């Protein structure tokens, strides 16, 4: 029994040691992709955590108000403050992952970073050719439900060729072409047709 335990822990240690080294072993493109994709998720998680904190506080003050432990005036003041903060965070969340096509943005960012690093044109061409395959691979690699959900939605509804922007009919906020809802006023903008860039219009023609 204890022998099995020792073997189990030894295997665990070796696998984890390999995982520790893995980010430094892959090619430079893989490493860049790693950084950029994770960064999006990191932002989403961060904002979600903070949003949940305010929602918890909102629940707490409601209970305190019901139990006469918070005066109506204090309750309203705190409620306004927490709601304001929550809405602000929700808007930021929408900005990050409420729209679609963020994977395409990641690809653009990688390209930009590689150009900046003075990579050869060959490398760029090679990367462009491999892009669809890699996106798929990355999607498989992602282990979380949230990440999967985000990625799947992005791939299904926002193919990389959809670019340009749309304007919210309600508040005129400029949004990404693939957005479903306005990140400012929350209006449904799924039906709004994106304004395609001239290059794409001519290509389509």
């Amino acid at each position, binding site marked *: 029994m*204890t*022998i099995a*335990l*020792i073997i189990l*822990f*030894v295997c*665990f*240690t070796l696998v*984890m*040691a390999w*995982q*520790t*080294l*893995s*980010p*430094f072993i892959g090619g430079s493109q893989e*490493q860049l992709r*790693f*950084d950029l994709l*994770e*960064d999006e*998720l*990191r932002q989403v*998680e*961060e904002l*979600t*955590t*903070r949003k*949940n*904190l305010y929602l918890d*506080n909102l629940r*707490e003050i409601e*209970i*305190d108000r*019901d*139990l*006469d*432990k*918070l*005066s109506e005036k*204090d309750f309203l003041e705190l409620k306004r403050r927490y709601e304001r903060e929550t809405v602000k965070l929700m808007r930021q969340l929408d900005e990050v992952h409420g729209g679609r096509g963020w994977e395409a943005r990641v690809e653009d960012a990688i390209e930009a970073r590689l150009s900046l690093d003075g990579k050869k044109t060959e490398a760029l061409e090679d990367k462009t050719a491999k892009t669809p395959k890699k996106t798929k691979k990355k999607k498989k690699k992602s*282990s*979380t*439900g*949230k990440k999967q959900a985000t990625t799947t939605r992005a791939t299904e509804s926002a193919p990389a060729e959809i670019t340009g922007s749309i304007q919210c009919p309600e508040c005129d906020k400029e949004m990404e072409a693939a957005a479903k809802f306005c990140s400012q006023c929350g209006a449904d903008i799924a039906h709004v047709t994106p304004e395609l860039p001239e290059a794409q219009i001519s290509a389509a023609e």
Partner: protein
Amino acid sequence: MIDNQDLGTFALYYALVVCLIGTAISIVAGRTGSQRFVHASRFASYTGAGAIFVAGAVLMHALLTHDFSIQYVASFSDHTMPLFYLIGSFWGGQAGSLLFWTSVVAASMVSCVYIYRRSYQDFMPWVSAVCLAVLSGLLMILVFGSNPFEGFSIINDPTTGKGLNPLLQTPKMVMHPPSLLAGLATMTIPYAFAMAALITGNMSNAWVKAARKWILIPWLFLSIGNMLGGMWAYEELGWGGYWAWDPVENAAFFPWLMTSALIHSIMIQERRGMLKRWNIGLMIASFVLTIFGTYITRSGLIQSVHTFAQSEIGDYFLALLLTVLAVSVTLFLWRWKDLKSDQRLDSPASRESAFIFNNWLLVVMTLVVLFGTMWPKIKEGLFGQEVAIGPPWFNRWMVPLGILLLLLMGIGTIIPWRRTTMAAFKRQFIIPIIATAGASPVILGAYWYGRGAALGVTPTPTEASYAIITVVCCIFAVTTMIADVGRAMNARMRKHEESAFEALSRLFIKQRRRYGGYVVHLGIVCAFVAFAGNALKIEQDISLDPGDTYQIGDYTLTYEGLTLENEPDKDIIIGKMRAERNGKHVHDLRPGKAVFHSAPNMPTSEIDIKTSPIEDLYVALVNHDPRTQAAAFKIFVAPFTWWFWLGGTILLLGTLICMWPTRDSLETLRPSPGVFVRATAFGALAILCVTPLAVLTYESHTSWGSAARFERMIGQEEIEGTNEPLQGKERAPGKTEQNASGANAEAS
């Protein structure tokens, strides 16, 4: 073939190297935000922990397979020990307990890093860095100061071990040290969050939110450890009580008090953005005190019943303590200005103020205990005078402070946030005050005339007034809780059209932190009832010849003589006693002493305790004369002691309710456990919490709690027939206490 020594030592060295590299990677990850380094730091934590687990598994394997080529195995186990105590010997000695501590830090770090793998990304690299740095410090002590895999040379390789100290071979003692060690070890996680907040400069409530549940874990383990230790001292050691203000007990009590203060003050930060400096300070103090407590007990600085031989390990702990202190205080001062509160206190009559007073009281209590523990040593060092500070000194300070705390517990439950208007005061306080005023005389009178007066004890005016005030404050605290829960239930019943039962259960499910906290408070109230009962406690040390009777309270005890029972591994001397009350036979008492063949100089006590919610009748056989059959006993009647254990049990259950993860938190575990698994896990843990009290009560009403179980197993054999062996095992008076010290030392 790799042997245990080599594999264990290699695992420790490997873990040390990984932890040091992991600390460096985590610092880079924290500074640059590079996700590659964040990923690497996370997996370096897993790798380091894995290597530590390998070392732990190897030591366990060596103990279970009796590998006596390892010094530690030979010193703390032998062939005859059952599996349960072999597992217990893992933490029965110094090196093993340190490896256990390190393993718990590693396990909690792994859990934390895994659970927060996608959140608190600005904190997590620093949390890993701090945990890995602490682990590196502990591993250095293990590798260079106290290696559990140290072997014998070929010449003196033993064929058998010395075995675990007989006093430690009780189930409670097997569980007490790991609980305390787990409490001390898990304090690393919330401390790491506080440090991460200081390093990143993120002074929002994020670290409090992240560390909130992790603060409850050390508090829970320290509570369990202190409770089991008290129970063991009460039932096995023959102290005559559950708390003796022993320095080692105090060392586990400092962090408990500090963490209790912190649990309350973080609520103020969460809600009002106040007490930011205070909270960080408390967190640092709690962690520093865990290392300080370990240092004073392991270095031999303080003389205690838990005696430890002076060893090199004390110097290592001092170095760790000074490093932690220097780093923490520097970071704290660096961020001092940023830690300014968002808001100010609106009124002294507010919930915030009640919590602040509560914090002051808990901190003052910590300082009192710290002073009482350290002053004899300081005075000896400064003036060369030896002084002793005993329980009366501690009680003089701690009793009034405790009563004030109890009063604040009641007030804090119902006082409104920000300010209390006269109308709010009337709404919240009038009913509890009236209920307390009505119920207190009834309850006190009912006890005094129903039972208390019959004990024939006249407490001093101070003791009596403290006891009465304590009971009144207990009633007040309970009524405030009932009033608050009642109001919350009404609100739910109105709002959601629920039945009373539904409303109550939903309250505990939806607001488990708030109402779990009330359950914890209820446990504390029960413990205070036990403290109040001490005013009427009767304690006697007596010597009796067979046939003698002795009156204690309204009990008449008749001593009937000694018997000797022989078991394969020990001899048991049993004192036979009969207890009557008002001429009616109530108990047969069988206190005894067990003399293990492996340790004939270390007899252990088999104390007979008849416990009930009203009072305990406690009889310990202290000494005996096999020739005349005269025996010395420690006897006492202690009202309400049972309530202390009940309080402890309720406290554990309440903490469990507070800590129980929400559905959202469980989602992070992937796959999230289903309702059935969650309910089963909660039920199992709840049963575990209730077990000590259930066992105590069962033992009290059956032969299992006293030496009578040996009588029943082997059969009666009168002392006359076995006079010879009994004489051979006669012990000098006072030997018991002396030997108990050594045993307790190893256990801790």
